[in-house]
């Protein structure tokens, strides 16, 4: 499926060997919108975000519409994803985390759907742009920090003061702990972005090999790509899972300071 996508994409954009594997990440404007000199155009990235949000709404609203005791296919999927996130939250945060279920569910479903939609031929992978993942991660970071201060007040600063340390070492360790705390949004966003971009670039590069090696040699990279597409779907799920579970872990830190 993605093999066809990539192969036809490569053939489409460059004749022969002049294939640009990064073309897929280009932002294209659909409706130009300018508000006070700021470019707020509706782009293909925005379009795929809206498609993802629409599909999630469709799944949850239509899937749970009937509320039958014996769930149908769509209702099963909706219930499964609900229980998956609810269990994750209970295991990692405990009962105090129940309040944050809507947040974690939204984040998990959005990342999962944008990752998975990226695997559809001719689509655009929203999460392969670092600004998107960084915006998500900094939203989580700021939200979690806010929750920490709201629950613990000024005691929340105790998170960056290690216990049982001689007073001489304390300033140094506080700075290190502070940096360690500030790395959270960076590592969270870079992980998702790098995984998605590397995978999709790799698919396109190998698709280029299929074209370049022609009818006789091209089947080898094609076979590899079929396997690699499977791996990419796994990565798409795994990265959404990791993103959500780290949100849970950060929430746990904020709610029950260690």
């Amino acid at each position, binding site marked *: 499926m993605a093999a066809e996508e990539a192969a036809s994409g490569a053939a489409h954009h460059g004749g022969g060997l002049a294939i640009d594997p990064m073309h897929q990440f280009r932002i294209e404007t659909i409706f130009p919108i300018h508000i006070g000199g700021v470019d707020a155009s509706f782009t293909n990235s925005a379009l795929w975000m809206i498609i993802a949000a629409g599909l999630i709404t469709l799944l949850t609203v239509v899937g749970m519409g009937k509320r039958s005791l014996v769930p149908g296919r769509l209702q099963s999927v909706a219930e499964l994803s609900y229980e998956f996130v609810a269990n994750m939250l209970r295991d990692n945060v405990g009962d105090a985390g129940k309040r944050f279920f809507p947040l974690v569910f939204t984040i998990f479903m959005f990342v999962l759907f944008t990752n998975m939609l990226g695997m559809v031929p001719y689509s655009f992978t929203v999460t392969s742009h670092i600004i998107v993942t960084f915006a998500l991660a900094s939203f989580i970071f700021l939200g979690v920090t806010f929750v920490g201060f709201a629950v613990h007040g000024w005691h929340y600063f105790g998170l960056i003061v290690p216990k049982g340390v001689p007073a001489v070492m304390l300033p140094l360790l506080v700075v290190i702990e502070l940096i*360690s705390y500030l790395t959270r949004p960076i590592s969270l966003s870079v992980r998702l972005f790098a995984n998605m971009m590397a995978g999709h670039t790799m698919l396109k590069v190998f698709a280029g090999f299929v074209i370049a090696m022609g009818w006789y040699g091209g089947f080898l990279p094609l076979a590899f790509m079929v396997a690699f597409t499977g791996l990419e779907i796994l990565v798409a799920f795994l990265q959404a899972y*990791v993103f959500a579970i780290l949100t849970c872990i950060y929430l746990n830190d904020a709610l029950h300071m260690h």
Partner: protein
Amino acid sequence: MGIAFRLSTELVAGVFVGGGIGLLLDKWLGTGPLFLLIFFFLGMAAGILNVFRTAKQLAVQAEQDAGNGNSGTKS
């Protein structure tokens, strides 16, 4: 692969954040590369601390999974 990638991003992010804070302080105070150097090393220390913590937490998780007898989907 998931675990390895997670650990390496933690390490790199520490260095980047440390270096970034150093650069900003230098720009603000106009003190040559002094703070960049200091915070670069502090960032490395923070990165290593993060890797250590993540590894410890993954080990606890693996132990729990083994204890429960389910192989789980934990990465």
